[in-house]
């Protein structure tokens, strides 16, 4: 995942990190661990996790579960794989009953096997990498769609709008880019469409003019662009400057200020997939309490707040159903029937992937610096 969120208030971050609730050593308590980037460049995600979980526990319980008090602890993995690994080692020394996190796919992937080994239920609100739910861990769930779903949606879009045109694919060697483009190509192939050209470049290149010339020479009508925000911005900007005669379709990485700054006016009109705006989609009645509770935490119900809220909600419901804190029991209970959550009614498949009534991703488009639903 390359969801680099701008960092504005580091002092605030530190204050929050220091303001972690003191750990309650009451052995009788139920321990919920929130894990994510609490400091560093992605700290905002950690903040959202923390706010969402607290809001959920405050709203859905009287701070007890099965008659035992709930204790919430917050842990920082800095969205760095090695830190996540050592953190998971520390956590299982005194294993919590549930872990809500991690955020970045790499950290989730690194830590999940150890939690599973110690029979700790894990729910990640934001890790989208396909492989996470392909590890065969039955006690791992995620509240967000898989990346490859974006690829499939892109294929649908391309087939629908550019089915009879020449399609180019521009990708980078990273896992995210390769996975999305691969699932898109596969889905296109199912629809009987084969891309005219697939160009693979390296990230952070000085210029992508050569690649642009390649697409132009291949006479493509549309390019499916999957890459980092800055690289995507440079590609879109340069394509625009040389008046490249193709449309660009992209993915969720375009939701970044740096893309907007780089692409400038060229950003306008580029459609892209992005996780569905739950607050906008779901019935306001369902989210009212959650939104109020999140605001009470001093946060706006944006980003991953509602997903974190929903993660806590799923766990609480699972415990209620199972009347147990055993990860296997709760996991079975979660899968046993649809759950009513702030995301609407949801179910989980055997792999732990969420299914919602609405698509997990939606199409958006930049319009004068604003992200608006694409028609």
């Amino acid at each position, binding site marked *: 995942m390359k969801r680099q969120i701008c960092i504005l208030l580091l002092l605030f971050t530190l204050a929050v990190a220091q303001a972690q609730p003191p750990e309650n050593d009451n052995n009788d308590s139920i321990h919920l661990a929130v894990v994510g980037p609490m400091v560093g460049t992605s700290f905002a995600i950690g903040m959202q996790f923390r706010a969402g979980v607290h809001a959920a526990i405050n709203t859905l319980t009287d701070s007890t579960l099965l008659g035992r008090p709930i204790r919430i602890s917050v842990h920082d993995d800095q969205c760095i794989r090695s830190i996540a690994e050592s953190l998971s080692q520390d956590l299982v020394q005194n294993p919590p009953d549930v872990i809500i996190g991690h955020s970045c796919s790499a950290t989730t992937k690194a830590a999940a096997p150890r939690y599973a080994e110690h029979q700790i239920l894990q729910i990640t609100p934001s890790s989208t990498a396909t492989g996470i739910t392909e590890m065969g861990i039955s006690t791992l769930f995620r509240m967000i769609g898989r990346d490859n779903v974006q690829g499939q949606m892109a294929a649908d879009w391309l087939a629908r709008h550019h089915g009879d045109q020449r399609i180019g694919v521009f990708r980078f060697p990273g896992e995210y880019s390769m996975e999305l483009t691969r699932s898109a190509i596969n889905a296109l192939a199912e629809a009987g469409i084969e891309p005219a050209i697939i160009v693979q470049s390296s990230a952070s290149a000085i210029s992508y003019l050569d690649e642009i010339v390649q697409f132009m020479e291949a006479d493509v009508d549309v390019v499916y662009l999957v890459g980092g925000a800055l690289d995507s911005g440079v590609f879109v900007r*340069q394509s625009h400057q040389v008046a490249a005669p193709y449309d660009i379709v992209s993915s969720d990485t375009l939701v970044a200020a740096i893309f907007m700054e780089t692409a400038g006016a060229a950003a306008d009109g580029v459609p892209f997939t992005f996780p569905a705006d739950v607050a906008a989609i779901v019935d306001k009645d369902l989210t009212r309490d959650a939104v109020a509770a999140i605001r009470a935490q001093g946060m706006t119900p944006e980003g991953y707040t509602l997903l974190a809220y929903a993660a806590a909600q799923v766990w609480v419901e699972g415990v209620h159903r199972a009347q147990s804190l055993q990860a296997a029991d709760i996991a079975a209970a979660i899968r046993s029937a649809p759950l009513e959550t702030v995301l609407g009614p949801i179910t989980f498949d055997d792999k732990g992937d969420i299914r919602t009534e609405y698509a997990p991703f939606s199409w958006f488009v930049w319009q004068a610096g604003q992200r608006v639903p694409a028609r």
Partner: protein
Amino acid sequence: MRRFRGLSGRQVNVSLPGKSGVRALLSGLGIRASFMLGLGAMAVFMLVVVFTSLATSAGLLRDVGNIVDEQLPATLASLSAARAMDRLAATGSSLMAVRSVAERDAAVQRVTSAQLDLQQPLTELLQGIEEEAADELIGLRDELQQNLTFLQHMADERIALIEAKQQARGLLLANLQSFQQQLTYRVRILEGDSDVLRLLLTRPTLPMAQITTLTAETSALIPISRFYAEIEAIGGRLLSASQDPALSALELSEQVISHSLNLADSTLSRVPQDIALELRQYFDQLQDQIEADEGLLSLHRRELLLLAQGELLNQNNQQIIARVDVATTALLNRELMAIDQAGDQLALSSQNALSLLLLVTFLGIVGMAAYFYLHVRSHLIVRLDRLSQSMQMIVAGKYDIELPARGADELGRLGNAVHQFHKVALEAIQRESELQKLNKRLEQLSISDSLTGLANRRRFDEVLPAEWSRAARARQSMAVLMIDVDYFKPFNDRYGHQAGDECLKQIAAVLKGRITRPSDLAARYGGEEFSVVLAHCNIDGANVIAEQIRQEIESLQIKHADSQVGVVTVSIGAAAITPSSQSSADELIRCADQALYKAKETGRNRVAENLEMMLPG
């Protein structure tokens, strides 16, 4: 003391009984008692040896126990105290190495446990050493603990510094990230736009308007590229400077960074105004973070100073430990010397004990030998000697001797036997003496007359021929007197036989008194007739002697009524001859008889001689 000759022949001095009680007792001991006493003494001596060796080995064991119980623990206390002190000092290094609260807690825990570990061995050590050394050790311990307290404070300070550094680092990273956000995409735009410009310039018909705009935009961005590089360099240098291991390296880094900041500042002034305004705040922030007291570099300097100070303290600790080592080594050496001395003492006393044992054994054996030698020689052999001497004396017939003591022991019984032997011998000698007397008497009896005691006729018959032969060899004259009592038969008749015997005895006595020469012999010839042999005597001599005899008998005045003179008288015939081969003794007797006859004839009480015999051959 008397001198006796021992069995060996050498002279030895011995005590005689009765001199003193013990000696008396010893000298009186028998063989068995002597050996019993010797063996008893040996047994007692063996017991003494055994007890001596037991006592010495017990003493040695006690000495060894002393070393084990007192010296060794003291030595071990020195060692373990020094080691515990060493460990305590070593905790100082771990205190200076802490980088987090958890590490600090662990290090403090180590310090505490090292302090606890030190308590017991130090207490043990202090008990066993003199005050001065104890004071020194306590002083060093206190100094060490004070240093450790300082180090703990410094560890706390360092943790605070590290946390502050972490924060400062976070701020710096945030600042650099801000720069990145501000600069990266602009640099990418610059790069991208330049490339586009290059492409546009290859177009057959140049889009001049676009090229102009792009060129203006791009050239304005060029200082940004340099500024970005400079900021990146400053950031990298800052981050590495915050890890500089020494103050000198840090100072160099500070100079470099300061220089780079100046360069970046001048670059920034060439950045387009609107962008420079945006960047200026971050640049000011960066400068603040570099120069402020709470900035990363300042914090790192303080940490380095702290570490240097801690290093000094640790060095001080090492010096303290060196002094502790010196002190404990001295103690240890003293303990070791004490053990050494105790060992030497032990060896010495064991040697002494061995010597004592050997001496006691030697003395005992010598004593035993002396006892047996002297006692046996002095007493047993003396007694045996005396027994033997007594026996020899007795055998030699000397009975007037001091007999050996009698007793119940073997030698006493032997003494008894000697006494018995002495008695028997004495009795035998007495009996022999009596027998000799008896024999003499018997012999006397056989040659003498029982009534008168004069030689009898048989004797006379023996002597006469012998005297005859002798006189013949010597050609000497010899004489014979024949004496007859006058009127003896009437005397017997008148006065009785007893008176007759008495008369004869008196006459015999006269003869005895007159015939005194050993070569002469007076004998009773038979009845009232006596004879006298006179050797080396002529007739004149014989007459003289005969006359003297007659007169003396007459003068006896033995009353005889039937005699003419009224008293007993004798008639004596004397004959003398110088024997020759033609004559014999019988001839002489016949002549004497003839003379006697003549005396009788001529009136009795007279001496007559036979002249015929006087003629030669």
